[in-house]
């Protein structure tokens, strides 16, 4: 699945995030599924999604380089496919 870095995203409100030394654990109370974030940067990206007009902006603000963007897009795509993150319908953060 392709992931649109230029759209606005957020963590699903039914998801609980728990920081761990290696990154974080995510648990979705609706789907009862668990996911893992495997480093601190991707955790920073996910945490700040709601504050940015696009996922790309959240990535760059968290220190992701242009070269690294495809890898982060794949990670976000995986989180989107498991409904951990969803597109924001109202662009309340500007855009």
């Amino acid at each position, binding site marked *: 699945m392709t992931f649109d870095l230029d759209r606005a995203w957020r963590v699903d409100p039914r998801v609980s995030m728990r920081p761990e030394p290696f990154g974080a654990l995510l648990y979705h109370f609706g789907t009862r599924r668990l996911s893992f974030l*495997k480093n601190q940067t991707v955790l920073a990206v996910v945490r700040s999604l709601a504050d940015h007009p696009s996922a790309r902006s959240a990535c760059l603000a968290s220190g992701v380089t242009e070269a690294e963007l495809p890898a982060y897009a794949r990670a976000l795509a995986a989180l989107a496919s498991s409904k951990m993150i969803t597109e924001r319908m109202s662009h309340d953060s500007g855009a």
Partner: protein
Amino acid sequence: MTLAPEVSSPAPGKLTDLFQLGLDAPICLTWELTYACNLSCVHCLSSSGRRDPRELSTRECMDVIDTLERMQVFYVNIGGGEPTVRPDFWELVDYATAHHVGVKFSTNGVRLDAAAAARLAASDYVDVQISLDGATREVNDAVRGPGSFDTAVRAMRNLADTGFRGFKLSVVMTRQNIPQIDEFKAIADRFGAQLRLTRLRPSGRGADVWDELHPLPEQQRELYDWLVAHGEEVLTGDSFFHLSAFGGALPGLNLCGAGRVVCLIDPVGDVYACPFAIHENFLAGNVRAAGGFAGVWKTSALFADLRKPDTGGACKSCGFYDSCRGGCMAAKFFTGLPLDGPDPECVQGYGETALAAATASPGLPVPRPSVDHSHRTVPSRSGPSGSAPRPAAGPVPVSITRRRPPAHDCDESPLAGFTTQAAGDAAGCC
């Protein structure tokens, strides 16, 4: 389903390696709320039956929930005994979900009337497992007792009637019911439930019936093939990772999660490394102690020891060690095998050799469970050693699960890990 789904990620290390060292808090844990049970299942892993007068009070249970909320434990697998016979059961369920601790509870269905089913259907934060160990009345009731088949079916009908979809039909696989595996699937489908198959352990009263109930070698193969064919449709609590040594790994972390990512709190507050190990050797502490549950999780010497990397022991040279990791700690312990050797049901046959060697060595009694709350009316069955007291029982086979989800694209990525099948089947055999 995906064969051999890799949990591994290039960096910062394989998840298995990270989990092996333990987490800051359990992902989930099993909490047996009471040893009281209306049934006397012959294989009860917690030897349940009679209520223990030292049982945690409502207030103490709420304190535990407060701790779990602070530690961000995502959910608890509540079992027993039969947890719904506690008068404060629903109060505790409501308290947990109000405090962001999800609940999955195992029940034989005795209290699941239409009103209870309706209240469950209304919550995102509560999931239910109905225990059934035979697809027919005869096979089930021989293990779980007269009337238990009808009770479970009635409960499932109540849940289905209220529109609760996806509750779990939980089956402990035995020599007698493996031939019924397709019938179990049909029952689950009929009620809109998801089938959950778990492994029989020689824990609690299970030690007494292990020889008669555990699957035959050819049945293990049959079960493995069935699991491979049905993949994600069926949950296993990752309890069959010892079968991965047949070839392709089953979904799951393939790591004993005991004390690492899961544990058990028993009705009197004792914390054990896993639900299948109610024995003093695996007792880490008690939630009533000064540091509470968090203190036990973080400072227990036993847990620190369990979080050391596995060395493989006698299994290290086996070509399948990476698949099965030597199998289940509790299964080894309660069959008298060394913990660093093969599982008694090792599919490569090393378990039989080890069991023969253990039997041949005199003076080493097979450990017996340290706690027993069986109804006194249950006919006494003497265990293999006959020397120790009978085990503690818990009716509901709440299994710790570490189920690994199908491989996703993200498994190629260092950034986001696998998504597990279901929370109850998350990781670490909980």
